[in-house]
């Protein structure tokens, strides 16, 4: 069993160790740390984020370590549940999952991931945040997906001096009612600085 040091802190590693050491009964105190809220950088991360973080948290993935076979089964399962994924996208997503969330092998080192071509996608810090935090799973610039398009948001709030603060709060706390009944999930992990960057980028669309 390989443990990615960034993802599985000591407490969890200890629980895994106990469980492996032949102790048949559940560990006495298994306090687990919260899994990361965003997917790790690597080839295919944008596509996987855009397709897999619509209905549920990225943590469904970051808490898991599965074999390639199991990931393939999981993706098939998610498509049955309604995930909008084309046949061409399946191998790209399974490759990403089986590379970075593998039960059988360590993910490539950080440096290798950084060299992957996806780095090119992330020049603009605001876009990088919108991608990493899965905003793109529900929002496009010029049309409505699950949530409103960024351009129509910018149009609605143009000239409204209170808008930046209101939108930052809405992104952090989530909620429904401004555009429809479907709620936006809360994003409590975002800092004020990150929220500010994203909101000013959105307002420029």
């Amino acid at each position, binding site marked *: 069993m390989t443990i990615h040091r960034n993802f599985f802190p000591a407490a969890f590693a200890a629980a895994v160790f106990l469980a492996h050491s032949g102790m048949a*009964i*559940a560990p006495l105190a298994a306090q687990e740390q919260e899994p990361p809220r965003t997917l790790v950088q690597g080839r295919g991360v*944008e596509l996987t984020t855009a397709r897999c973080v619509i209905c549920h948290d990225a*943590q469904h993935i970051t808490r898991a370590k599965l074999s390639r076979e199991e990931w393939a089964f999981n993706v098939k399962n998610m498509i049955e549940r*309604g995930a*909008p994924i084309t046949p061409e996208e399946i191998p790209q997503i399974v490759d990403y999952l089986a590379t970075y969330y593998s039960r059988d092998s360590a993910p490539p080192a950080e440096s290798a991931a950084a060299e992957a071509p996806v780095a090119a996608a992330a020049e603009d810090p605001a876009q990088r945040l919108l991608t990493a935090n899965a905003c*793109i*799973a529900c929002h*496009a*610039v010029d049309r409505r997906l699950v949530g409103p398009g960024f351009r129509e948001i910018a149009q609605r709030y143009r000239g409204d001096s209170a808008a930046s603060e209101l939108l930052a709060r809405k992104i952090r706390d989530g909620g429904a009612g401004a555009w429809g009944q479907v709620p936006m999930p809360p994003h409590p992990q975002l800092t004020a600085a990150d929220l500010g960057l994203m909101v000013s980028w959105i307002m420029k669309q």
Partner: protein
Amino acid sequence: MGLRDILSALRRPVGVHPGEKKIMSDKLTEHRHSDSGITVTRRDFITRVAGTGAAVAAGTAGFAALAQAQGAPKPQAAAAPKPPADPAGTISNDAVKAEKVPEMQYHSERPLTGSVSAEHHNYAVTPTDRMFVRNNLLTPDLSEATHKLTIKGLVDRELVFSMAELKKAFPAVTLQGMVECAGSGRQNFVPAASGTRWLPTGGMGCPRWTGVRLRDVLNAAGIKPNAVHVAGQGGDFGVIATAAPVIRSIPLSKAMDSDTLIAWGMNDGPLPKVHGFPLRLVAPGWVGSASTKWLHTLTVLDAPFKGTYMDSSYRIPKHPVKPGERMPKDAVSTEAWPVKSMITHPAPNVAFKVGKPVLVEGRAWVGEGDIDRVEVSFNEGQTWQRAMINSGGDKYAWRIFSFEFVPKNPGYTTVLARATDSRGNVQPMQSTWNPLGYFWNAIHRVGFVVET
């Protein structure tokens, strides 16, 4: 559309592969939003979504870099994720959490999943604010005034009830019954199975439910001789139109059990929204997904319902597979929980004194049958002693066990509890590994400190 068509439609798979043009039937995927009284079919959504086919890499149009970075041909006709056309309102996580005790631990935020650990379950009847939380989709905000329950399929007469009509038509029953998530305790499996990890003992509870017997309602509709399963469908929906509705079916034998209810009450109050307001099934003792929340339609079928939540989830291999292997073809649906117990007192790591009695308490239950005995061990299972159990009580309620332990020696001490059911099944040391991590029922163990 005749009955045959409806039933064959019902049996077609729920999931649609966005790459495929094939669209499933209207009937199968209807989303009924009781608030509006409108029935919307997923066909509408899918056709509409497919119409936007030009919208290729969904959600990524503003990020040309993404398409480049993929270095792959542009994906074809990915359905852009669209919200359902006329969703009801939903209940926020904060609103749900406000009705729960601070001891509740949350295992995921979207969807919200929460449970309390064993020592916070030391109640004879699970209080509503300690009942575990688990949905597949969003929590809908439905209205009792407009809610309707339809019974259809292999019945002599299709019936539709308002809430008031349902309450008037049949005798009300109140009983205590277990509901436990199939994946309860999943975190104990090694290697880790995918899905909500829960706590070591898991997400379960044994509240009192009030409602009418499903049996009475089915009898009123008249069940055809070839009926074998009953499917429940609820008013929950996903953030996108293509999200498959959660439909589960149970065998007629369980549907006709006198303790299987269509419930509107929990612990003498109304059902909280998150637990299925205004109406839900309670198939006590069975995996939680059999107890459809926000229930609006019951369909009597001549075979188990075919759909992703029957055919790909909530399944275990018929014959155990090597840990880490994927689900084999011959898997079976999860139904009744195997025998299980947990120690609710003492809490882990509490200090006691040599010579002073420690009251060990816990709960034991089994999906079908009864608890025959519970034994405890204070030497890691070398020797076992019988605990007292409160036999009697409702058929599907957990049993309370207790044992007075007088520590003779100081030091760290553990207690193990092991239940045996009326069919002779004993809780195992380790539960059989299965790919989706269901039915963890191994012996529970708690450590505490004895001081001189």
